[in-house]
């Protein structure tokens, strides 16, 4: 993985920039000390590390704007960062860039229950939004596994999902408005407490843009009334195929559960050993199905789902009888990553999405690859929406294992694309999958995406080196080649 060559001119402006930042920021908000900069050297993708040239921690939109304006004038790159929980290196700093930390913008500004909206700053954690409204019986639906730590600004940048997004949508489906600072310091406001902004859907493209288009300084989210009841079903199958077919049966019956997760045998065993949720150790596949809604509806659907599972030959089936039991079902799934961490010195988490029906094929091919690379793999899977998280187990102390794990991971992602899926379901492209973009997109596709970037950030100063395998200058992307003025298909009917 290569990052753009550090720019000497930018490095030469370091002390000048620090002085200018200190004109409007307290000294502890401008980090220059080498040891302190280490705190920012990576995000959740710890294989890549790079301390930034400077880190800046503003507290207001005006400070963000002023800081970006200075960087733009100096031609210095900026990497925005929320809580730093990205798993794809989206917030990996640049040696010649300023790291813009948004953690100090951490206030819930307003809660509007009648309009079911909350206005928050980007540094507020995902879970804190739900906590702020739970007293009135509301919550914020998208729930990435890192929700205790990840920030809503980062969720917008990565378009984060979670187990509930099958029924309730991703971040992009739950954002009503944004305040964004562009690279030139201009502050724009989009959307609000009404639905559908006029003009081009800028909220739509900013969400999931991985910090390449603008810096989010305020978010208006949709909050929902918490369902009356949530109930879990824990269902074991003697094959992954049977589990997958059962998922299709449930959706085919017109039921959209609040969540539907599957784990394979290695993941079941690791989770059971880690936190003892009572998972069936004789099962090859475990489905956790959550149904939510009015009690009478959940009762009704539980019986239908139970029937479908039995018809597919479930080897074990438990229905949660209490909230404690439901949470216990989830405990193992939510702890799957640390659980796997205990059975292997290191693991590498992949994040591809596939059409669900291709799951047996993909798992079989992954088992073959596991043999080829000599590395074990455990699988947790958002079964409802096809988002796979294969965990490749390796030992970084064994020479060559990290590289083999990375090659294995890339092969898995290529396989996802080959069966009609995508490179990343929720973790983002970042630096991690950047060089694989060509397996999914043509050069024309990628150039068109980069032209969108040019509209927001013509100098390419915002988070460069992420998402796109090749950096283009906007001027060269502007060129246009037209092949003659010949009348195409002259024999086709016109009217």
């Amino acid at each position, binding site marked *: 993985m290569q990052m753009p060559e550090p720019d000497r001119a930018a490095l030469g402006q370091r002390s000048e920039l620090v002085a200018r930042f200190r004109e409007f920021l307290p000294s502890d908000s401008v980090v220059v000390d080498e040891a302190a900069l280490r705190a920012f050297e990576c995000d959740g993708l710890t294989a890549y590390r790079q301390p930034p040239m400077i880190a800046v921690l503003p507290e207001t939109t005006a400070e963000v704007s002023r800081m970006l304006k200075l960087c733009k004038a100096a031609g210095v790159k900026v990497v925005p960062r929320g809580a730093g929980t990205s798993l794809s290196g989206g917030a990996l700093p640049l040696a010649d860039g300023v790291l813009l930390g948004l953690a100090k913008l951490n206030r819930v500004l307003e809660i509007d229950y009648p309009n079911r909206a909350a206005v928050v700053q980007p540094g507020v954690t995902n879970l804190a939004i739900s906590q702020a409204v739970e007293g009135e019986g509301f919550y914020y639906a998208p729930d990435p596994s890192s929700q205790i730590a990840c920030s809503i600004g980062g969720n917008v940048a990565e378009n984060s999902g979670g187990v509930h997004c099958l029924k309730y949508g991703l971040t992009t*489906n739950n954002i009503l408005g944004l305040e964004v600072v562009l690279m030139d310091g201009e502050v724009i406001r989009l959307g609000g407490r009404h639905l559908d902004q006029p003009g081009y859907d800028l909220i739509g493209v900013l969400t999931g843009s991985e910090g390449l288009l603008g810096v989010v300084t305020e978010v208006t989210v949709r909050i929902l009334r918490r369902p009356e009841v949530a109930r879990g079903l824990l269902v074991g199958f003697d094959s992954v195929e049977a589990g997958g077919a059962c998922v299709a049966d449930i959706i085919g019956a*017109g039921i959209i559960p609040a969540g539907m997760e599957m784990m394979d045998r290695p993941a079941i065993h690791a989770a059971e050993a880690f936190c003892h949720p009572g998972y069936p150790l004789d099962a090859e596949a475990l489905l956790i199905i959550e149904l939510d809604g009015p009690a009478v509806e959940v009762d009704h659907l539980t019986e239908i789902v139970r029937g479908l599972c039995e018809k597919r030959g479930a080897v074990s089936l438990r229905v949660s009888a209490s909230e404690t039991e439901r949470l216990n079902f989830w405990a193992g799934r939510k702890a799957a990553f640390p659980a796997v961490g205990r059975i292997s010195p290191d693991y590498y988490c992949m994040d591809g999405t596939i059409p669900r029906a291709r799951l047996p094929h993909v798992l079989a091919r992954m088992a073959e690859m596991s043999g080829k690379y000599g590395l074990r793999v455990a699988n947790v899977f958002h079964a409802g929406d096809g988002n796979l998280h294969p965990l490749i187990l390796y030992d970084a102390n064994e020479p060559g294992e990290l590289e083999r794990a990375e090659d294995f991971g890339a092969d898995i992602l290529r396989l996802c694309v080959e069966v009609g899926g995508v490179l990343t379901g929720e973790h983002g492209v970042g630096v991690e999958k950047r060089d694989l973009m060509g397996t999914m997109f043509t050069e024309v596709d990628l150039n068109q995406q980069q032209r969108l970037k040019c*509209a927001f950030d013509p100098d390419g100063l915002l988070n460069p080196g992420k998402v796109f395998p090749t950096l283009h200058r906007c001027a060269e992307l502007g060129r246009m080649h037209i092949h003659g003025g010949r009348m195409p298909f002259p024999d086709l009917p016109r009217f």
Partner: protein
Amino acid sequence: MRDDMKPLNEEHLRECVAEAVAGGAPLEVAGQGTKRGFGRPAAADRRLELSALSGIRLYEPEELVMSAGAGTPLDEIEAALAAKRQMLAFEPPHLGRIYGHAQAGGTIGGVFACNLAGPRRFRAGAARDHLLGFRGVSGRAEIFKSGGRVVKNVTGYDLSKLVCGSFGTLAALSEVTFKVLPAPEKTWTVLVFGLGATEAAAAMAEAAGAPHEVTGLCHLPAAIAMESTVDYVAGAGTSVTAIRVEGPGPSVEHRAGALKAMFAGRGGVEELHGHRSGEFWTEIRDVQPLLGRDRALWRVSLPATDGGAWLDRAMAETGGDGYLDWAGGLVWLAVAPGDDAHAAAVRQGLNGGHATLMRAPDGVRRRVPVFEPEATPVAALSRRIKEGFDPKGVLNPGRMVEGV
């Protein structure tokens, strides 16, 4: 002489656009043309008709996904989904009739290009929330794609969002792939009679904030309710506030009962079942209560709790008629067209929201910004985006903003 083009496949579509670029001859991009009256009149002499890029190409009900040529009639899509007891959850309006077309649904490409959504919008999202991917031809005469066929996808920029609501100004779509959902087993509607508009907006906020998972909330003043073809509504003799619940049978019965109890003390309460309920929401979706009024039509999006008071004021100031959908967050308003369709009065007090002139004579639509004007830096950004996709301005120029 007009030299309209009707490409038969994607490559041919690309060549049609290439020819327009080379000849400097802009194109009006259209499906069946049912929504030609929506937006500003495009400044183009030639029409690029996509209706031949038609047909469902992939439908996997268990995967909740469908792909179709952009020119596929919405009716065909909806019939195929209904056969498997599924639906487009965003409930696209069949708007053709407000523009005088008998074929009201138009094409699936048109639905996404206009990013329209019906009464379920406030709960289920707009068209843009359901488009997973697309293929199309940019104004650079290049075939490109974005997105995919799976729900969870964060690979690259979400250009699917951008083409939704771009009115064909960024790309001529050739194929769209979208999410579908199971159709509800049962649909009931609770009617509450006699609420004023402000009172109704508060009642709707209360219903939307309750745990009863309502999927439709609208309010018709007495004069509009009379226009309904549903007898319970037309015969009410007063205003009607409607609350829809959908889902499995026992759940719908339980929730409708709870809602009736919630509003029992606040006016007469009735229930609509089965086809009557379906017919009522189709009317609301397609703006039928205002159809007979041969006037300019506005569609106003604003914070839901503001809707009632805003409607009362706008009706008083413009002499128009209207009703509330989306729990009060959407107002449909019919006014005399005049020179400017009362644009200044309509664009007042939106509290961050926006007003779209949905129907008016061409002259009025040239004079009045059809879409809410954007703040200067946002407008500049939109212009740069357009240039990135269509530098020569050959795709629907002027359809959204004069001169762009």
